[in-house]
């Protein structure tokens, strides 16, 4: 088969895997409340809001996802070397990573809650730990497994010179960085503060005054992932999928247009710059739209 076609297929597959991974990663961090928005969950009890959120302060998402995907990648690499078939090795690797994830998640919850329990009267909810652990580890498994597919394709098909564990580490850090900078905003700025009217940031004075009541009953992390799956999760997935896909797209165009190495690479770079210019333009369009639609504050 034409090698360009194979590379195109691998790129499409890894783009798709990355999309699913990004989405699952964001929803996982919403169930568990990780990364930046978690500062509010941490602040809640201090402001008198006894809550039933999970408090998954393992570390920032890039570091923790770097760990899970690197563990999965290293285990999978070891099993592939042992002669196990690739799909099974990837699944087992992601499974071990899920176990590690679960262990760190529980210790983060207990550590953070007990660390402020006596002063602010925040109880440890064991039912929250037990009920949330499944969705956290499950979403994490999907994210890690998909990242691992992308990393495996990168080393085996897309000409990445690094070994699988190292590529897995770097991909994990990247997915964590993207997940914590896109989707988490939806959780932090909107879901945690839904009792305030839509439209507007959270003033410093209101920080820590998080929602503790849900649509019915008491709010917990699973409600958040349901809410964020409407916008934050899919957009996170899209960001990462597009990053992987468009990042390799330029090379494919260069390959198709052909020519020597220099001209191919220059075409790839130009395509990349065009993509970046288009995003800058779209960003401006959205900005102008928001300025027109929402307008300035006039009452001060």
């Amino acid at each position, binding site marked *: 088969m034409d090698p360009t076609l194979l590379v195109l297929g691998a790129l499409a597959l890894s783009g798709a895997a990355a999309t699913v991974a990004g989405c699952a990663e964001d929803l996982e961090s919403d169930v568990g409340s990780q990364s930046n928005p978690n500062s509010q969950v941490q602040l809640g009890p201090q402001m008198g809001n006894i809550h039933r959120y999970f408090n998954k302060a393992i570390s920032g998402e890039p570091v923790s996802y770097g760990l899970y995907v690197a563990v999965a990648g290293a285990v999978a690499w070891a099993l592939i070397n042992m002669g196990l078939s690739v799909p099974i090795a990837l699944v087992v690797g992601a499974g071990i990573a899920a176990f590690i994830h679960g262990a760190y998640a529980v210790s983060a919850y207990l550590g953070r809650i007990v660390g402020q329990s006596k002063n602010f009267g925040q109880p440890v909810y064991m039912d929250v730990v037990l009920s949330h652990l499944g969705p956290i580890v499950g979403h994490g498994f999907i994210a890690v497994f998909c990242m691992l597919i992308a990393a495996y394709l990168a080393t085996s098909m897309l000409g*990445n010179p690094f070994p699988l564990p*190292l590529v897995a580490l770097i991909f994990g850090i990247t997915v964590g960085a993207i997940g914590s900078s896109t989707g988490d905003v939806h959780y932090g700025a909107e879901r945690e503060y839904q009792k305030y009217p839509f439209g507007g940031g959270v003033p410093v004075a209101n920080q820590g005054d998080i929602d503790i009541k849900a649509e019915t009953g008491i709010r917990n992390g699973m409600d958040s992932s349901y809410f964020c799956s409407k916008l934050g999760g899919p957009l996170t997935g899209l960001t990462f999928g597009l990053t992987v896909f468009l990042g390799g797209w330029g090379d494919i165009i260069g390959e198709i247009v052909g020519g020597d190495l220099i001209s191919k690479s220059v075409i790839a770079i130009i395509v990349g710059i065009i993509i970046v210019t288009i995003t800058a333009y779209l960003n*401006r369009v959205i900005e102008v739209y928001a300025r027109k639609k929402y307008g300035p504050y006039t009452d001060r």
Partner: protein
Amino acid sequence: MAVPLVEITLAGAIINASVHFVPVGGAPAAMATSTGIGTGTTQLAAGAGFTGLMAAAIMAAQKGIVLSNPIHLAIILLSGAVGSMIMLALTMLLGQLIYVFGVGVVPAADKCEKDPITGDYQKSYITPGTTGHAIPTVCFISGLIGAALGGIGGGLAYIALKQLGFASEVAGIIAVGFFFMNAVLASYNIGGTIEGFHDPKFKKMPNGIIASFIASLLTGVIVVGMSIGI
């Protein structure tokens, strides 16, 4: 020997500078309480920088690339820069979508009266009690510059290590450690949040660059020493 040493030292300084350009709001930005991307400085810079590092490494691994050829060198660095820029541009664009449609805020910078690029007034669009939110054009452009520098810095460190004769795998892991070292130095210099090149904190950048320059020079000397045996 001398060329890679200079390259590593420069790479460290460039990486440090790049972090100052990326508009990160830290934890407050995730609540739309301050302008910028809602995550930590180091981690986002690392995410973008490593994407660039990978792009540069893939380009450097292509058949027919000669590391001593300046044109090839430029192509590798530009590939790294473009890889980082695509990653950060998409992150900012889709983050912006969430800010505008999911949170309902207008992108507004707090550290300038008027956006220096578009000339739009900012202050009246800021939610009272916050220090701006989302990613106005000036932050977006600043972020793109930062990403490009990050990709160039990561790529340059990687190339220097390759020129010294390290295998790709060894060069890759040293570059990762090297990148983290410089990015964290920069983020300590920033101290949490920065909006971009129009932020008054940006003026602190020389301190960070000096720190990275010295640390990278030292690392460079060690790395060059290591390479003698290869």
